[in-house]
Protein backbone atom coordinates (compact mmCIF):
# COMPACT_ATOMS: atom_id res chain seq x y z
CA UNK A 1 0.00 0.00 0.00
CA UNK A 2 1.21 3.49 -0.88
CA UNK A 3 1.75 5.61 2.25
CA UNK A 4 2.91 8.82 0.55
CA UNK A 5 1.23 11.92 2.00
CA UNK A 6 -0.76 12.09 -1.24
CA UNK A 7 -0.97 9.64 -4.10
CA UNK A 8 -3.47 9.39 -6.93
CA UNK A 9 -3.81 7.18 -9.97
CA UNK A 10 -6.04 7.76 -12.98
CA UNK A 11 -8.33 10.00 -10.94
CA UNK A 12 -11.40 11.09 -12.87
CA UNK A 13 -14.30 13.36 -12.12
CA UNK A 14 -17.24 14.07 -14.39
CA UNK A 15 -19.90 16.55 -13.33
CA UNK A 16 -23.38 15.70 -14.49
CA UNK A 17 -26.27 18.13 -14.36
CA UNK A 18 -29.78 17.45 -15.62
CA UNK A 19 -30.33 19.09 -18.97
CA UNK A 20 -26.64 19.84 -19.55
CA UNK A 21 -23.93 17.74 -21.16
CA UNK A 22 -21.52 16.09 -18.70
CA UNK A 23 -18.35 18.04 -17.93
CA UNK A 24 -15.15 16.06 -17.48
CA UNK A 25 -13.19 18.05 -14.90
CA UNK A 26 -10.50 15.43 -14.28
CA UNK A 27 -9.53 13.05 -17.06
CA UNK A 28 -7.13 10.68 -15.30
CA UNK A 29 -4.80 12.50 -12.93
CA UNK A 30 -1.93 10.51 -11.48
CA UNK A 31 0.47 12.15 -9.09
CA UNK A 32 2.30 11.70 -5.82
CA UNK A 33 3.50 14.15 -3.21
CA UNK A 34 6.41 13.03 -1.06
CA UNK A 35 6.90 13.71 2.67
CA UNK A 36 7.99 17.26 3.44
CA UNK A 37 7.47 18.50 -0.12
CA UNK A 38 5.82 21.71 -1.24
CA UNK A 39 4.10 21.00 -4.53
CA UNK A 40 2.24 23.50 -6.70
CA UNK A 41 -0.67 22.59 -8.92
CA UNK A 42 -0.87 25.05 -11.79
CA UNK A 43 -3.34 25.53 -14.57
CA UNK A 44 -5.64 28.08 -16.06
CA UNK A 45 -9.17 28.63 -14.74
CA UNK A 46 -11.29 25.51 -15.08
CA UNK A 47 -8.31 23.23 -15.69
CA UNK A 48 -9.31 20.96 -12.78
CA UNK A 49 -7.02 22.13 -9.97
CA UNK A 50 -9.73 22.89 -7.43
CA UNK A 51 -11.64 19.72 -8.32
CA UNK A 52 -8.51 17.70 -7.59
CA UNK A 53 -7.91 19.55 -4.34
CA UNK A 54 -11.51 19.06 -3.23
CA UNK A 55 -11.36 15.32 -3.92
CA UNK A 56 -8.00 15.00 -2.16
CA UNK A 57 -9.33 16.91 0.85
CA UNK A 58 -12.37 14.57 1.14
CA UNK A 59 -14.87 17.24 0.04
CA UNK A 60 -15.85 15.69 -3.30
CA UNK A 61 -16.33 12.15 -4.58
CA UNK A 62 -14.29 11.10 -7.60
CA UNK A 63 -16.04 9.38 -10.48
CA UNK A 64 -13.28 6.76 -10.71
CA UNK A 65 -9.62 6.16 -9.98
CA UNK A 66 -7.68 5.91 -6.73
CA UNK A 67 -6.52 8.53 -4.29
CA UNK A 68 -4.83 8.00 -0.92
CA UNK A 69 -3.73 10.27 1.93
CA UNK A 70 -1.00 8.64 4.05
CA UNK A 71 -2.24 5.32 2.69
CA UNK A 72 -5.90 5.93 3.55
CA UNK A 73 -8.33 5.58 0.70
CA UNK A 74 -9.99 8.99 0.40
CA UNK A 75 -12.89 7.66 -1.67
CA UNK A 76 -13.83 4.77 0.59
CA UNK A 77 -12.77 6.00 4.04
CA UNK A 78 -12.59 9.81 4.06
CA UNK A 79 -12.98 9.82 7.85
CA UNK A 80 -9.61 8.06 8.16
CA UNK A 81 -7.85 10.65 6.00
CA UNK A 82 -9.40 13.73 7.63
CA UNK A 83 -7.30 13.79 10.82
CA UNK A 84 -4.18 14.16 8.63
CA UNK A 85 -5.32 17.17 6.63
CA UNK A 86 -6.17 20.86 6.85
CA UNK A 87 -7.52 23.02 4.04
CA UNK A 88 -7.56 26.67 3.04
CA UNK A 89 -10.62 26.65 0.78
CA UNK A 90 -10.71 28.74 -2.38
CA UNK A 91 -12.37 32.08 -1.57
CA UNK A 92 -12.83 30.92 2.03
CA UNK A 93 -13.43 33.63 4.60
CA UNK A 94 -13.13 33.60 8.39
CA UNK A 95 -16.22 34.21 10.49
CA UNK A 96 -16.80 37.96 10.23
CA UNK A 97 -18.00 38.16 13.83
CA UNK A 98 -14.91 36.54 15.31
CA UNK A 99 -11.54 38.19 15.84
CA UNK A 100 -8.51 36.42 14.29
CA UNK A 101 -7.40 35.24 17.76
CA UNK A 102 -10.86 33.73 18.43
CA UNK A 103 -11.04 32.23 14.95
CA UNK A 104 -7.72 30.40 15.20
CA UNK A 105 -8.19 29.25 18.80
CA UNK A 106 -11.74 27.93 18.36
CA UNK A 107 -10.77 26.17 15.13
CA UNK A 108 -7.91 24.35 16.84
CA UNK A 109 -10.23 23.36 19.68
CA UNK A 110 -12.79 22.06 17.15
CA UNK A 111 -10.01 19.87 15.69
CA UNK A 112 -9.51 18.34 19.13
CA UNK A 113 -6.38 20.12 20.32
CA UNK A 114 -6.02 20.84 24.04
CA UNK A 115 -6.55 24.34 25.47
CA UNK A 116 -2.84 24.81 26.15
CA UNK A 117 -1.71 23.65 22.71
CA UNK A 118 -4.42 25.71 21.05
CA UNK A 119 -3.40 28.84 22.94
CA UNK A 120 0.30 28.38 22.21
CA UNK A 121 -0.23 27.70 18.53
CA UNK A 122 -2.73 30.55 18.19
CA UNK A 123 -0.21 33.06 19.53
CA UNK A 124 2.56 31.60 17.35
CA UNK A 125 0.39 31.82 14.23
CA UNK A 126 -0.70 35.37 15.01
CA UNK A 127 2.88 36.51 15.40
CA UNK A 128 4.15 34.51 12.45
CA UNK A 129 1.52 35.89 10.07
CA UNK A 130 1.85 39.49 11.26
CA UNK A 131 -1.65 39.56 12.75
CA UNK A 132 -0.70 40.91 16.19
CA UNK A 133 -1.92 44.46 15.55
CA UNK A 134 -5.46 43.40 14.72
CA UNK A 135 -5.71 39.99 16.40
CA UNK A 136 -8.60 41.16 18.58
CA UNK A 137 -10.52 43.13 15.97
CA UNK A 138 -13.58 41.50 14.40
CA UNK A 139 -12.76 40.08 10.96
CA UNK A 140 -15.58 42.14 9.45
CA UNK A 141 -13.46 45.24 10.08
CA UNK A 142 -10.34 43.80 8.40
CA UNK A 143 -9.23 44.20 4.79
CA UNK A 144 -9.53 41.33 2.32
CA UNK A 145 -5.81 40.59 2.61
CA UNK A 146 -5.95 40.57 6.41
CA UNK A 147 -8.91 38.18 6.34
CA UNK A 148 -7.01 35.89 3.98
CA UNK A 149 -4.02 36.00 6.30
CA UNK A 150 -6.36 34.96 9.12
CA UNK A 151 -7.53 31.97 7.07
CA UNK A 152 -3.97 30.90 6.30
CA UNK A 153 -2.90 31.42 9.94
CA UNK A 154 -5.84 29.28 11.08
CA UNK A 155 -4.76 26.38 8.90
CA UNK A 156 -1.02 26.78 9.47
CA UNK A 157 -1.62 26.67 13.23
CA UNK A 158 -2.94 23.12 12.92
CA UNK A 159 0.53 21.89 11.88
CA UNK A 160 -1.39 19.13 10.10
CA UNK A 161 0.75 16.56 8.30
CA UNK A 162 -0.80 17.46 4.92
CA UNK A 163 -2.02 20.92 4.03
CA UNK A 164 -4.09 21.82 0.99
CA UNK A 165 -3.99 25.50 0.12
CA UNK A 166 -6.24 26.69 -2.71
CA UNK A 167 -4.89 30.08 -3.80
CA UNK A 168 -3.70 30.90 -0.29
CA UNK A 169 -2.23 34.35 -0.94
CA UNK A 170 -4.95 35.80 -3.13
CA UNK A 171 -5.56 39.45 -2.25
CA UNK A 172 -2.43 39.77 -0.11
CA UNK A 173 0.20 42.46 -0.51
CA UNK A 174 3.76 41.38 -1.46
CA UNK A 175 4.98 41.58 2.16
CA UNK A 176 2.16 39.38 3.47
CA UNK A 177 2.74 36.89 0.66
CA UNK A 178 6.35 36.53 1.68
CA UNK A 179 5.33 35.99 5.30
CA UNK A 180 3.08 33.17 4.13
CA UNK A 181 5.88 31.68 2.05
CA UNK A 182 8.23 31.76 5.03
CA UNK A 183 5.62 30.12 7.25
CA UNK A 184 4.99 27.38 4.71
CA UNK A 185 8.71 26.71 4.31
CA UNK A 186 9.01 26.53 8.08
CA UNK A 187 6.12 24.06 8.29
CA UNK A 188 7.71 21.71 5.77
CA UNK A 189 11.01 21.76 7.64
CA UNK A 190 9.01 20.53 10.63
CA UNK A 191 7.66 17.64 8.54
CA UNK A 192 4.38 18.82 7.06
CA UNK A 193 3.66 18.38 3.37
CA UNK A 194 1.93 21.01 1.25
CA UNK A 195 -0.06 20.96 -1.96
CA UNK A 196 -1.11 24.39 -3.17
CA UNK A 197 -2.73 25.95 -6.18
CA UNK A 198 -1.86 29.46 -7.22
CA UNK A 199 -2.23 31.82 -10.14
CA UNK A 200 0.91 33.66 -9.06
CA UNK A 201 3.65 31.89 -10.96
CA UNK A 202 6.37 33.74 -9.06
CA UNK A 203 4.86 32.22 -5.94
CA UNK A 204 4.91 28.73 -7.43
CA UNK A 205 8.54 29.22 -8.41
CA UNK A 206 9.63 30.65 -5.08
CA UNK A 207 7.76 28.17 -2.96
CA UNK A 208 7.41 24.80 -4.62
CA UNK A 209 9.89 21.96 -4.81
CA UNK A 210 7.94 20.49 -7.72
CA UNK A 211 4.96 21.47 -9.76
CA UNK A 212 2.27 19.87 -11.86
CA UNK A 213 0.58 21.69 -14.72
CA UNK A 214 -2.99 20.59 -15.31
CA UNK A 215 -4.80 21.34 -18.54
CA UNK A 216 -8.30 20.10 -19.41
CA UNK A 217 -8.24 17.70 -16.46
CA UNK A 218 -4.90 16.08 -17.28
CA UNK A 219 -1.38 16.54 -16.00
CA UNK A 220 0.59 17.78 -18.99
CA UNK A 221 3.88 18.61 -17.26
CA UNK A 222 5.45 17.67 -13.93
CA UNK A 223 8.84 18.42 -12.47
CA UNK A 224 10.72 21.35 -11.02
CA UNK A 225 10.36 24.92 -12.27
CA UNK A 226 13.78 24.57 -13.92
CA UNK A 227 12.65 21.36 -15.65
CA UNK A 228 9.70 23.25 -17.07
CA UNK A 229 11.91 26.09 -18.27
CA UNK A 230 14.35 23.65 -19.87
CA UNK A 231 11.45 21.95 -21.62
CA UNK A 232 10.84 25.12 -23.62
CA UNK A 233 14.42 25.21 -24.93
CA UNK A 234 16.49 26.98 -22.31
CA UNK A 235 16.57 28.85 -19.04
CA UNK A 236 17.81 32.17 -20.46
CA UNK A 237 16.28 34.64 -22.88
CA UNK A 238 17.97 37.20 -25.06
CA UNK A 239 15.83 40.17 -26.04
CA UNK A 240 16.72 42.14 -29.18
CA UNK A 241 14.49 45.23 -29.49
CA UNK A 242 15.50 45.73 -33.15
CA UNK A 243 16.11 42.07 -33.99
CA UNK A 244 13.08 41.16 -36.13
CA UNK A 245 14.92 41.93 -39.35
CA UNK A 246 17.52 39.27 -38.44
CA UNK A 247 15.09 36.49 -37.62
CA UNK A 248 16.71 33.93 -39.92
CA UNK A 249 20.15 34.39 -38.34
CA UNK A 250 18.90 33.67 -34.85
CA UNK A 251 16.37 30.91 -35.45
CA UNK A 252 18.93 28.13 -35.10
CA UNK A 253 19.72 29.03 -31.47
CA UNK A 254 16.41 28.01 -29.97
CA UNK A 255 12.83 29.11 -29.80
CA UNK A 256 12.41 32.58 -31.30
CA UNK A 257 9.45 34.82 -30.45
CA UNK A 258 8.87 37.80 -32.76
CA UNK A 259 6.80 40.73 -31.57
CA UNK A 260 6.76 43.72 -33.92
CA UNK A 261 10.38 44.83 -34.38
CA UNK A 262 11.69 42.89 -31.41
CA UNK A 263 12.89 39.33 -31.08
CA UNK A 264 13.19 37.16 -27.98
CA UNK A 265 15.33 34.04 -28.23
CA UNK A 266 15.12 31.31 -25.60
CA UNK A 267 18.53 29.76 -25.23
CA UNK A 268 20.54 27.43 -23.04
CA UNK A 269 23.41 28.96 -20.99
CA UNK A 270 25.93 27.00 -23.10
CA UNK A 271 24.99 28.79 -26.30
CA UNK A 272 24.56 32.28 -24.85
CA UNK A 273 28.13 33.43 -25.67
CA UNK A 274 27.77 32.42 -29.29
CA UNK A 275 24.45 34.21 -29.51
CA UNK A 276 25.84 37.39 -27.93
CA UNK A 277 28.73 37.37 -30.39
CA UNK A 278 26.28 37.27 -33.29
CA UNK A 279 24.22 40.10 -31.80
CA UNK A 280 27.37 42.24 -31.41
CA UNK A 281 28.42 41.46 -34.99
CA UNK A 282 25.02 42.71 -36.17
CA UNK A 283 25.37 45.78 -33.89
CA UNK A 284 22.15 44.96 -32.07
CA UNK A 285 21.28 46.05 -28.56
CA UNK A 286 20.68 42.95 -26.44
CA UNK A 287 19.33 42.25 -22.96
CA UNK A 288 19.85 38.92 -21.19
CA UNK A 289 17.46 37.61 -18.53
CA UNK A 290 16.13 34.40 -17.04
CA UNK A 291 13.15 32.71 -18.59
CA UNK A 292 10.35 33.16 -16.09
CA UNK A 293 8.02 30.39 -15.08
CA UNK A 294 5.20 32.41 -16.58
CA UNK A 295 6.91 32.45 -19.98
CA UNK A 296 7.52 28.72 -19.78
CA UNK A 297 3.92 28.17 -18.70
CA UNK A 298 2.68 30.18 -21.67
CA UNK A 299 4.73 28.10 -24.06
CA UNK A 300 3.57 24.81 -22.53
CA UNK A 301 -0.11 25.58 -22.09
CA UNK A 302 -0.38 27.89 -25.04
CA UNK A 303 -2.24 30.67 -23.28
CA UNK A 304 -2.11 32.79 -20.15
CA UNK A 305 -2.80 31.24 -16.75
CA UNK A 306 -5.77 33.51 -16.06
CA UNK A 307 -7.27 33.05 -19.52
CA UNK A 308 -10.45 30.97 -19.70
Amino acid at each position, binding site marked *: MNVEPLWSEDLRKTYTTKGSPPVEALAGVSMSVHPGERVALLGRNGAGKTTFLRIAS*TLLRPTSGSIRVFGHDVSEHPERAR*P*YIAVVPQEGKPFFHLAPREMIYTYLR*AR*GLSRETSQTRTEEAIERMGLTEFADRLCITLSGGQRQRTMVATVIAT*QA*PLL*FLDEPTIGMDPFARREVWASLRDLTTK*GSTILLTTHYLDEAEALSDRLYIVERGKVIVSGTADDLKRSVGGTLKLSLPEGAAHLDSFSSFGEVLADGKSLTIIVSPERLGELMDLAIQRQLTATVGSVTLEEAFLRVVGRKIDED
Partner: protein
Amino acid sequence: MRTDPPGEVLRPTRPFGGTVAFLWTEVLVQAHESLAMATAMVTQTVLLVFVYILNPSLIGVALIGAVLFSAFTLGQRVLNEAAYIRIDHKANDLYLAGPMSPEGYFLGMAAGILVVYIAPIALLGGLAVVVGHLALTTSLALLGLAGLVWLFAASIGYIFSTFFRDNRAIWAYASLFFNVFGVLPPVFYPFGFFPPALQPVALLMPPSAAAALLQSRIGEAALSSGQAELALFGLVAETVVVFLVAIFWARRTVRGP
Protein backbone atom coordinates in the same frame (compact mmCIF):
# COMPACT_ATOMS: atom_id res chain seq x y z
CA MET B 1 9.69 13.24 7.70
CA ARG B 2 6.18 12.88 9.02
CA THR B 3 4.67 9.67 7.66
CA ASP B 4 3.06 8.37 10.79
CA PRO B 5 2.60 11.58 12.70
CA PRO B 6 1.85 11.52 16.40
CA GLY B 7 -0.15 13.96 18.50
CA GLU B 8 -3.68 14.91 19.31
CA VAL B 9 -4.36 16.37 15.87
CA LEU B 10 -4.52 12.85 14.55
CA ARG B 11 -7.02 11.41 16.99
CA PRO B 12 -9.52 9.50 14.88
CA THR B 13 -12.78 11.33 14.36
CA ARG B 14 -15.20 10.35 17.11
CA PRO B 15 -18.99 10.42 16.61
CA PHE B 16 -20.13 13.93 17.58
CA GLY B 17 -16.48 14.94 17.99
CA GLY B 18 -16.02 18.72 18.06
CA THR B 19 -19.65 19.45 19.07
CA VAL B 20 -18.81 21.42 22.21
CA ALA B 21 -15.96 23.35 20.57
CA PHE B 22 -18.13 24.35 17.63
CA LEU B 23 -20.97 25.21 20.02
CA TRP B 24 -18.72 27.82 21.64
CA THR B 25 -17.54 29.04 18.24
CA GLU B 26 -21.16 29.65 17.32
CA VAL B 27 -21.89 31.30 20.67
CA LEU B 28 -19.02 33.73 20.08
CA VAL B 29 -20.21 34.45 16.54
CA GLN B 30 -23.85 34.99 17.53
CA ALA B 31 -23.05 36.95 20.67
CA HIS B 32 -21.52 39.69 18.53
CA GLU B 33 -24.96 40.29 17.00
CA SER B 34 -27.02 41.43 19.96
CA LEU B 35 -29.56 43.18 17.75
CA ALA B 36 -30.40 39.84 16.12
CA MET B 37 -31.30 38.47 19.55
CA ALA B 38 -33.75 41.33 20.10
CA THR B 39 -35.32 40.98 16.65
CA ALA B 40 -35.78 37.24 17.25
CA MET B 41 -38.57 38.09 19.69
CA VAL B 42 -40.47 40.61 17.52
CA THR B 43 -43.08 38.27 15.99
CA GLN B 44 -43.88 36.60 19.31
CA THR B 45 -44.19 39.94 21.10
CA VAL B 46 -46.51 41.38 18.46
CA LEU B 47 -48.75 38.30 18.60
CA LEU B 48 -48.79 38.42 22.41
CA VAL B 49 -49.89 42.07 22.31
CA PHE B 50 -52.69 41.25 19.86
CA VAL B 51 -53.92 38.34 22.00
CA TYR B 52 -53.76 40.46 25.16
CA ILE B 53 -55.81 43.24 23.54
CA LEU B 54 -58.37 40.93 21.90
CA ASN B 55 -58.79 38.36 24.68
CA PRO B 56 -56.62 38.77 27.80
CA SER B 57 -57.85 35.46 29.21
CA LEU B 58 -55.89 33.64 26.47
CA ILE B 59 -52.53 35.24 27.33
CA GLY B 60 -51.39 32.09 29.19
CA VAL B 61 -52.04 30.00 26.05
CA ALA B 62 -50.29 32.61 23.91
CA LEU B 63 -47.24 32.69 26.19
CA ILE B 64 -46.85 28.91 25.94
CA GLY B 65 -47.23 29.30 22.19
CA ALA B 66 -44.58 32.02 22.18
CA VAL B 67 -42.08 29.69 23.87
CA LEU B 68 -42.79 26.90 21.37
CA PHE B 69 -42.73 29.31 18.42
CA SER B 70 -39.36 30.67 19.62
CA ALA B 71 -37.93 27.15 19.81
CA PHE B 72 -39.34 26.41 16.35
CA THR B 73 -37.95 29.51 14.66
CA LEU B 74 -34.44 28.69 15.92
CA GLY B 75 -34.55 26.19 13.07
CA GLN B 76 -34.73 29.11 10.67
CA ARG B 77 -31.60 30.55 12.27
CA VAL B 78 -29.80 27.22 11.88
CA LEU B 79 -30.86 27.13 8.23
CA ASN B 80 -29.64 30.69 7.62
CA GLU B 81 -26.38 30.21 9.50
CA ALA B 82 -25.48 26.87 7.89
CA ALA B 83 -26.21 28.22 4.43
CA TYR B 84 -24.36 31.49 5.10
CA ILE B 85 -21.23 29.71 6.34
CA ARG B 86 -21.30 27.37 3.34
CA ILE B 87 -22.31 29.74 0.54
CA ASP B 88 -20.79 33.06 1.59
CA HIS B 89 -17.77 32.01 3.66
CA LYS B 90 -17.01 28.49 2.45
CA ALA B 91 -15.84 28.01 6.02
CA ASN B 92 -17.67 24.67 6.26
CA ASP B 93 -14.85 23.21 4.12
CA LEU B 94 -12.35 24.44 6.70
CA TYR B 95 -14.13 22.49 9.45
CA LEU B 96 -15.32 19.42 7.55
CA ALA B 97 -12.01 18.65 5.81
CA GLY B 98 -10.47 17.81 9.17
CA PRO B 99 -10.92 15.63 12.22
CA MET B 100 -14.13 17.32 13.38
CA SER B 101 -17.22 15.15 12.88
CA PRO B 102 -19.89 16.39 10.44
CA GLU B 103 -22.64 15.71 12.98
CA GLY B 104 -20.64 17.65 15.58
CA TYR B 105 -20.57 20.58 13.15
CA PHE B 106 -24.37 20.45 12.73
CA LEU B 107 -25.22 19.86 16.37
CA GLY B 108 -22.63 22.35 17.66
CA MET B 109 -24.06 25.04 15.41
CA ALA B 110 -27.66 24.28 16.45
CA ALA B 111 -26.78 24.13 20.15
CA GLY B 112 -24.70 27.30 19.97
CA ILE B 113 -27.62 29.20 18.48
CA LEU B 114 -29.87 27.75 21.20
CA VAL B 115 -27.49 28.86 23.96
CA VAL B 116 -27.41 32.43 22.65
CA TYR B 117 -31.20 32.70 22.33
CA ILE B 118 -31.97 30.84 25.53
CA ALA B 119 -32.30 34.01 27.64
CA PRO B 120 -35.26 35.59 25.79
CA ILE B 121 -36.92 32.16 25.51
CA ALA B 122 -36.43 31.60 29.24
CA LEU B 123 -37.98 35.02 29.88
CA LEU B 124 -41.07 34.02 27.89
CA GLY B 125 -41.11 30.66 29.70
CA GLY B 126 -40.91 32.39 33.07
CA LEU B 127 -43.83 34.64 32.13
CA ALA B 128 -45.81 31.60 30.93
CA VAL B 129 -45.24 29.87 34.29
CA VAL B 130 -46.15 32.95 36.36
CA VAL B 131 -49.06 34.30 34.28
CA GLY B 132 -50.52 30.87 33.49
CA HIS B 133 -49.93 29.54 37.05
CA LEU B 134 -48.28 26.45 35.57
CA ALA B 135 -47.69 23.51 37.89
CA LEU B 136 -44.17 22.11 38.16
CA THR B 137 -45.01 19.08 36.03
CA THR B 138 -46.58 21.30 33.35
CA SER B 139 -43.53 23.59 33.44
CA LEU B 140 -41.26 20.58 32.97
CA ALA B 141 -43.52 19.37 30.15
CA LEU B 142 -43.17 22.80 28.53
CA LEU B 143 -39.39 22.54 28.81
CA GLY B 144 -39.27 19.03 27.34
CA LEU B 145 -41.72 19.71 24.51
CA ALA B 146 -39.95 22.97 23.59
CA GLY B 147 -36.71 20.96 23.47
CA LEU B 148 -38.26 18.44 21.07
CA VAL B 149 -39.62 21.25 18.88
CA TRP B 150 -36.16 22.87 18.83
CA LEU B 151 -34.44 19.61 17.87
CA PHE B 152 -36.97 18.98 15.10
CA ALA B 153 -36.68 22.50 13.71
CA ALA B 154 -32.88 22.64 13.95
CA SER B 155 -32.60 19.31 12.13
CA ILE B 156 -35.03 20.38 9.39
CA GLY B 157 -33.21 23.72 9.11
CA TYR B 158 -29.82 22.06 8.65
CA ILE B 159 -31.12 19.59 6.07
CA PHE B 160 -32.82 22.36 4.05
CA SER B 161 -29.70 24.52 4.18
CA THR B 162 -27.80 22.01 2.04
CA PHE B 163 -30.18 22.36 -0.90
CA PHE B 164 -29.69 26.07 -1.55
CA ARG B 165 -27.01 27.72 -3.66
CA ASP B 166 -28.10 31.31 -3.11
CA ASN B 167 -28.80 33.03 0.18
CA ARG B 168 -31.45 35.30 -1.31
CA ALA B 169 -33.63 32.29 -2.12
CA ILE B 170 -33.27 31.06 1.46
CA TRP B 171 -34.58 34.25 3.05
CA ALA B 172 -37.93 33.91 1.30
CA TYR B 173 -38.47 30.17 1.68
CA ALA B 174 -37.18 29.90 5.24
CA SER B 175 -39.29 32.77 6.49
CA LEU B 176 -42.36 31.37 4.74
CA PHE B 177 -41.83 27.84 6.07
CA PHE B 178 -41.18 28.70 9.68
CA ASN B 179 -43.84 31.40 9.96
CA VAL B 180 -46.56 29.41 8.23
CA PHE B 181 -45.96 26.29 10.31
CA GLY B 182 -45.42 28.26 13.50
CA VAL B 183 -48.21 30.86 13.30
CA LEU B 184 -51.13 29.49 11.27
CA PRO B 185 -51.73 26.27 13.24
CA PRO B 186 -53.03 26.53 16.83
CA VAL B 187 -49.82 27.51 18.56
CA PHE B 188 -50.77 30.98 19.86
CA TYR B 189 -54.50 30.21 20.21
CA PRO B 190 -56.52 27.27 21.58
CA PHE B 191 -56.55 24.02 19.65
CA GLY B 192 -60.38 23.99 19.63
CA PHE B 193 -60.46 27.16 17.48
CA PHE B 194 -58.81 25.25 14.61
CA PRO B 195 -61.20 23.75 12.00
CA PRO B 196 -62.04 20.20 13.20
CA ALA B 197 -61.33 18.71 9.78
CA LEU B 198 -57.76 20.04 9.93
CA GLN B 199 -57.09 19.20 13.58
CA PRO B 200 -55.28 15.89 12.81
CA VAL B 201 -52.92 17.87 10.57
CA ALA B 202 -52.21 20.30 13.41
CA LEU B 203 -51.48 17.36 15.70
CA LEU B 204 -48.84 16.15 13.26
CA MET B 205 -47.04 19.50 13.14
CA PRO B 206 -44.48 19.67 15.95
CA PRO B 207 -45.19 23.22 17.23
CA SER B 208 -48.98 22.82 17.27
CA ALA B 209 -48.75 19.24 18.59
CA ALA B 210 -46.68 20.46 21.54
CA ALA B 211 -49.04 23.40 22.05
CA ALA B 212 -52.12 21.14 22.01
CA LEU B 213 -50.58 18.82 24.63
CA LEU B 214 -49.75 21.74 26.93
CA GLN B 215 -53.14 23.40 26.40
CA SER B 216 -54.72 20.09 27.32
CA ARG B 217 -52.75 20.04 30.60
CA ILE B 218 -53.97 23.53 31.58
CA GLY B 219 -57.57 22.85 30.54
CA GLU B 220 -57.61 25.05 27.43
CA ALA B 221 -58.00 22.18 24.96
CA ALA B 222 -60.05 19.00 25.11
CA LEU B 223 -58.02 16.27 23.44
CA SER B 224 -59.37 12.77 23.13
CA SER B 225 -56.96 10.05 24.22
CA GLY B 226 -56.35 9.22 20.55
CA GLN B 227 -55.55 12.82 19.76
CA ALA B 228 -53.16 13.15 22.71
CA GLU B 229 -51.35 9.98 21.69
CA LEU B 230 -51.15 11.13 18.09
CA ALA B 231 -49.70 14.47 19.18
CA LEU B 232 -47.15 13.00 21.61
CA PHE B 233 -46.00 9.98 19.63
CA GLY B 234 -46.11 11.94 16.39
CA LEU B 235 -43.91 14.66 17.86
CA VAL B 236 -41.41 12.23 19.38
CA ALA B 237 -41.28 10.03 16.28
CA GLU B 238 -40.93 12.96 13.88
CA THR B 239 -38.20 14.50 15.99
CA VAL B 240 -36.21 11.28 16.30
CA VAL B 241 -36.54 10.49 12.60
CA VAL B 242 -35.67 14.00 11.41
CA PHE B 243 -32.71 14.21 13.84
CA LEU B 244 -31.33 10.87 12.61
CA VAL B 245 -31.83 11.97 9.01
CA ALA B 246 -29.99 15.23 9.80
CA ILE B 247 -27.03 13.29 11.21
CA PHE B 248 -26.99 11.01 8.18
CA TRP B 249 -27.35 13.99 5.86
CA ALA B 250 -24.61 15.96 7.63
CA ARG B 251 -22.23 13.06 7.04
CA ARG B 252 -23.48 12.48 3.49
CA THR B 253 -23.22 16.09 2.33
CA VAL B 254 -19.61 16.69 3.36
CA ARG B 255 -18.88 15.62 -0.21
CA GLY B 256 -21.84 17.38 -1.80
CA PRO B 257 -25.61 16.77 -1.51
